[in-house]
């Protein structure tokens, strides 16, 4: 009880700068929420500049010849679906539009990655939109292969020893287009990894890097979680040839394909929130410097 008196004595009204620098979280969060929701109702439709990485991947897929086999990996945890789905949908559509290109679909991350695959397939809808593409001839689905990094490395060495059957239990021997065309990882004309959020030493992404990138020198592309993209730049462009930067990358790819998909939807909200956060950081620092200036004794100003 004695303390209270003391505290009251020492309590001065803090300067407005000090108060601004020690804001509670809720007002910061509330403004962020507004900046997220507004663009959904009033879109700005800012055009997206297309980066070299998306163009590289686009050109690579354009240059694929009939009979080339592509490995398309769906290894993202289902929780990360929003980050990776748009990019994979765009790339898969482009792959399916190329005649004679064969696609091997697989996932290593966890059993829930199969749900990720199911969702992409529901959007692309091969049977309806690409009626001439047949299962077993143009694409196969191997399902989830457990075992983490070791399995990824072993799959690259000898795919059909690790996955002797497809998801539906048919031996791969019955698909000669795939069985004869691919003997080791080096035979894939293009490898696209989906679970970038694992990071360089994540067990699936790292496995892809070590096997297809360092060992077999495949044309390796990643559909990346933007929050980890900085970590992969050391390997670009010698080992990793292209990275789609999450939904922004997907929007670029959609623009190359002249379509408007899930990636383009996010772009405005991304711009607005970044605008807000940058303004917040800059303003806080101006206030911080001003506060430091104010708290100096008057004579030394």
């Amino acid at each position, binding site marked *: 009880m004695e303390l209270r008196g003391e505290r009251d004595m020492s309590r001065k009204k803090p300067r407005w700068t000090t108060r601004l620098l020690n804001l509670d979280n809720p007002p910061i969060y509330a403004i962020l929420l507004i900046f997220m929701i507004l663009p959904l109702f009033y879109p700005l439709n800012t055009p997206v500049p297309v980066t070299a990485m998306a163009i590289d991947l686009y050109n690579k897929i354009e240059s694929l010849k009939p009979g080339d086999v592509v490995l398309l990996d769906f290894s993202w945890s289902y929780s990360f679906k929003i980050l990776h789905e748009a990019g994979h949908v765009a790339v898969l559509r482009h792959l399916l539009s190329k005649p004679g290109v064969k696609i091997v679909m697989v996932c290593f991350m966890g059993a829930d990655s199969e749900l990720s695959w199911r969702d992409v397939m529901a959007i692309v809808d091969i049977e309806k939109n690409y009626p001439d593409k047949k299962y077993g001839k143009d694409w196969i689905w191997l399902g989830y292969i457990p075992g*983490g*990094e*070791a399995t990824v490395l072993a799959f690259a060495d000898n795919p059909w020893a690790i996955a002797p059957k497809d998801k539906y239990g048919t031996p791969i021997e019955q698909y000669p287009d795939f069985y004869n065309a691919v003997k080791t990882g080096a035979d894939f004309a293009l490898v696209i990894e989906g679970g970038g959020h694992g*990071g360089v*030493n994540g*067990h699936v992404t790292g496995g892809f890097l070590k096997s297809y990138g360092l060992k077999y020198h495949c044309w390796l592309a990643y559909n990346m979680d933007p929050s980890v993209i*900085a970590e992969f730049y050391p390997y670009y462009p010698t080992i990793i040839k292209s990275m789609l930067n999450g939904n922004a990358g997907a929007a670029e790819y959609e623009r190359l394909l002249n379509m408007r998909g899930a990636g383009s939807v996010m772009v405005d909200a991304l711009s607005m929130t970044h605008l807000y956060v940058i303004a917040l950081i800059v303003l806080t620092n101006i206030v911080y410097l001003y506060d430091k200036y104010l708290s100096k004794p008057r004579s030394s100003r």
Partner: protein
Amino acid sequence: MIKPGWMLDTLIFWVLFATITVAAILARRGKVLRIRWLPALEGIKDGVGRAVEMNQPVHFSPGAGTMLSGDWATQTVAAISILAYVSRLCAKYGARLLVSYPYAEWLPLIEEAYKSGFILEGRSERINPADLRPYLGGSFNVGVMRRLLDEKPATVINVGPIIWDSVDIGETAKRIGAIMIGGTARLLQLPYVVLTSDYVFIGEELYAAGAVASGDPFQINTVGSQDVGKYFVLVMLVLGIILLALGLPINAWLSI
């Protein structure tokens, strides 16, 4: 015999492996290397001291990625060695230690590390198995966040293979006013750990921390002798540029 492309890697590995092993064995003959102290270990000490002063617990979690596979497993081993140090400090100064873990694979080791400190300090009566809590199958973040808010620890330690818990746990710790000590060798999460923590084990410091903290010459030598590899890299950088300038295909040599 050896796969093409792996010759040099294998050679370098075995040389380094042998060097570190020999250096570690030499420690038993009294040849101890001097190594610098890690600032984050001081942070752990401060944090435990603060918890004792405030009569609040210390919370430890080994990151959400403690699976049995690849790099993740190795980082978990490192995290568990830090847990042993934390447990010892907590037993010594009398703080309660809470442990949350995401995968049950490590329960035997985590339980042993948790108990070891209390047993070494002769406080085995304070071991409480209910302080160890599993949050299985993706419920780790939300579980730890609620536990932090309910139990209000004074110090939160989250080291190990962090996947996506750095921001969640770090900001929750800030909200309850706790000292946050983070650390991971997963470089993609490291920046977020730096962003949200007061003390950080940067990359390899995570691997070294348990050994440095133990003060055991054997373990200190394994840490110190790694520098052979670092000097090798430094020399190779300079030498490589010189050889390259002389027109030799150094990069082809490095990938035999």
